[in-house]
């Protein structure tokens, strides 16, 4: 749902382009820098609590999603195995649904789907955003006008509304297809941000040099421009990743989720559909919500940590 992170674009803007004022602050640092830039980043990274906590939570959940299903002997999460509507117990850690399905088994499989849709949706959106953003920002002129116009058009249309129509008509059977459609609709804000970054980088000396030496456009973009904003691109991907998860959970909840499979959003949907709320079966709707919130929240917090690591201005205080 929160397809676009409410983090404010300019807040992370100085990441790729070191502002002139920054130089003065670093002046005292520089002669004393026996560490290379990579090692210096690592130095701050392993000391940043936000990054560590965020990544820690994401890692734990990811491992749960990856290996959890194997520990459950690959049991079918839809199997009507236990007692019906049982609260959490030693046997069913998260209790069971009205039909006797194990909530924990569904949760573990759902986490997997959540990460999968995030990777696919966020990845596709990031690729489109980079292609559009780099090309528009680097070429400028008419190319830029057209691409920016197109970006703005897609940006204004609520992506969930488009996905509703697409999913309703075409039907979405699997998580990867859902991720694909999400990726195709959620790239515009990122394209705009990357375009702005590229725009500010393209007049730099090293880019001029590459241009003068006859490098082709895409070569310059991938050899000179992209590496200089790699941290920014990575953070954009993280935000797209989190956004894709939230959109997917909304679609699942409305009833347009993948028809075969388990996901945290679908769990919420069936809990809603079968009145878990009225029946007081909190163990049915609390875990999936906690799962989504934890993954997305941890990603956002890790992102803030990354911003502090990459951006010296934010480090102190």
């Amino acid at each position, binding site marked *: *749902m*929160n397809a676009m992170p*409410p983090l404010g674009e300019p*807040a992370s803007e100085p990441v790729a382009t070191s502002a002139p004022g920054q130089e003065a602050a670093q002046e005292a640092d520089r002669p004393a820098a026996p560490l290379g830039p990579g090692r210096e980043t690592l130095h701050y990274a392993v000391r940043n609590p936000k990054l560590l906590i965020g990544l820690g939570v994401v890692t734990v959940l990811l491992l749960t999603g990856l290996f959890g299903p194997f520990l459950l002997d690959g049991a079918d999460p839809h199997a009507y195995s236990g007692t019906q509507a049982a609260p959490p117990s030693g046997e069913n850690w998260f209790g069971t649904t009205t039909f006797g399905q194990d909530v924990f088994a569904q949760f573990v499989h759902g986490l997997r789907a959540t990460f999968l849709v995030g990777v696919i949706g966020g990845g596709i959106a990031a690729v489109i955003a980079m292609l559009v953003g780099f090309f528009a920002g680097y070429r400028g002129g008419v190319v830029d006008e057209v691409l920016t116009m197109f970006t703005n058009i897609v940006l*204004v249309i609520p992506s969930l509304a488009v996905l509703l129509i*697409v999913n309703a*008509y075409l039907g979405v059977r699997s998580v990867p297809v859902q991720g694909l459609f999400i990726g195709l609709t959620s790239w515009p804000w990122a394209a705009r941000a990357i375009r702005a970054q590229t725009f500010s980088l393209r007049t730099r000396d090293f880019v001029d040099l590459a241009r003068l030496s006859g490098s082709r456009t895409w070569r310059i973009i991938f050899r000179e421009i992209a590496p200089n904003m790699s941290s920014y691109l990575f953070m954009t991907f993280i935000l797209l990743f989190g956004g894709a998860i939230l959109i997917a959970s909304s679609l699942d*909840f*409305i009833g347009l989720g993948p028809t075969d499979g388990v996901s945290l959003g679908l769990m919420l949907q069936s809990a809603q559909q079968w009145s878990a709320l*009225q029946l007081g079966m909190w163990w049915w709707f609390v875990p999936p919500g906690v799962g989504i919130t934890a993954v997305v929240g941890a990603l956002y917090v890790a992102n803030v940590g990354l911003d502090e690591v990459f951006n010296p201005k934010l480090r102190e205080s």
Partner: protein
Amino acid sequence: MRRYFARKLLVYVLTFVFAVTVNWMIPRFMPGDPVSAMISRARVSQPEAVEAMRAYYNELFGFDRPVWEQYLHFWGSLLQGDFGLSIWVFPQPVSSVILGALPYTLALMVPAVLLSWFVGNWLGALAARRKVLDNTVLPAGYLLTAMPYMWIAVLLAWLLGAKAGWFPVSGGYSLDIQPTWTWHFFTDALHHWVLPFLSLFLVALGGWAIGMRNMIIYELEADHSSYLSALGAPQRLIRRYAFRNAVLPQITGLALQLGVLVAGALVTEIVFNYPGLGSLILAAIQNRDFFLLQGTFLFIVIGVLIANFIIDLVYVVVDPRTRTGMAGGR
């Protein structure tokens, strides 16, 4: 100024054309004969409805005619306000079904969006000033933005509705009364409105607070703030300037977040069974009422475009640079 608006309007008109085109095109991607496919997928009980659907689809899409003619025809009936007949509540026209649900969605969204924006910005500005607040507002903000809208809705319904029994958790008004312009209906509707409003408000709030806090800190780090500090200007003045500058991107942010907020409102309505567009969409999906779905989609797009335009107007009033930049100079 005129150029600025002409440009904005162009984007909006193109967006509308794009949205209508998407709406027209997607049914065409359905495998097989689209008309039969759609009719067979629709869960229609009345035989008249099947006939009406077939007739409408044939009339609307006219698959026997050339593609450009089909497309123009689609536009023609659209501009006459003809969205077709709803299958779900056959034979009501889609437009009147939507207009009946619209007030509820607006009553939910407009206050939630505006209030969350104002309160969020205020909280964010406060957080940027005090370390203690910052350490509470920031984590709370991230927690709230990471929550799926429907989940916080479910939690509130469970805690404040089902458990505490303070608020009803379903519907826009009690089942035993009819919507009328009476005080009784109003208080009843208000009672039903609180929880959906609150859940929408809370999730949006977190985002605005974080955005504002980050923007203010960015502004306080900016050169113009350092310059004022170097000249000994009091913190009060520096913060006032920073706040003013930081509000501007938040206004743009409002326009950018509209789609997300609409999506949030839709799923929140579904949780509370609130009789707005969200519940309409759910019904349309469950009943395979494609006309209704497509009509709702276009209404949402139009609504977002209008809201965008209003925000553009506000921005021009608030940011002096847009005005002078256009009057000349630049």
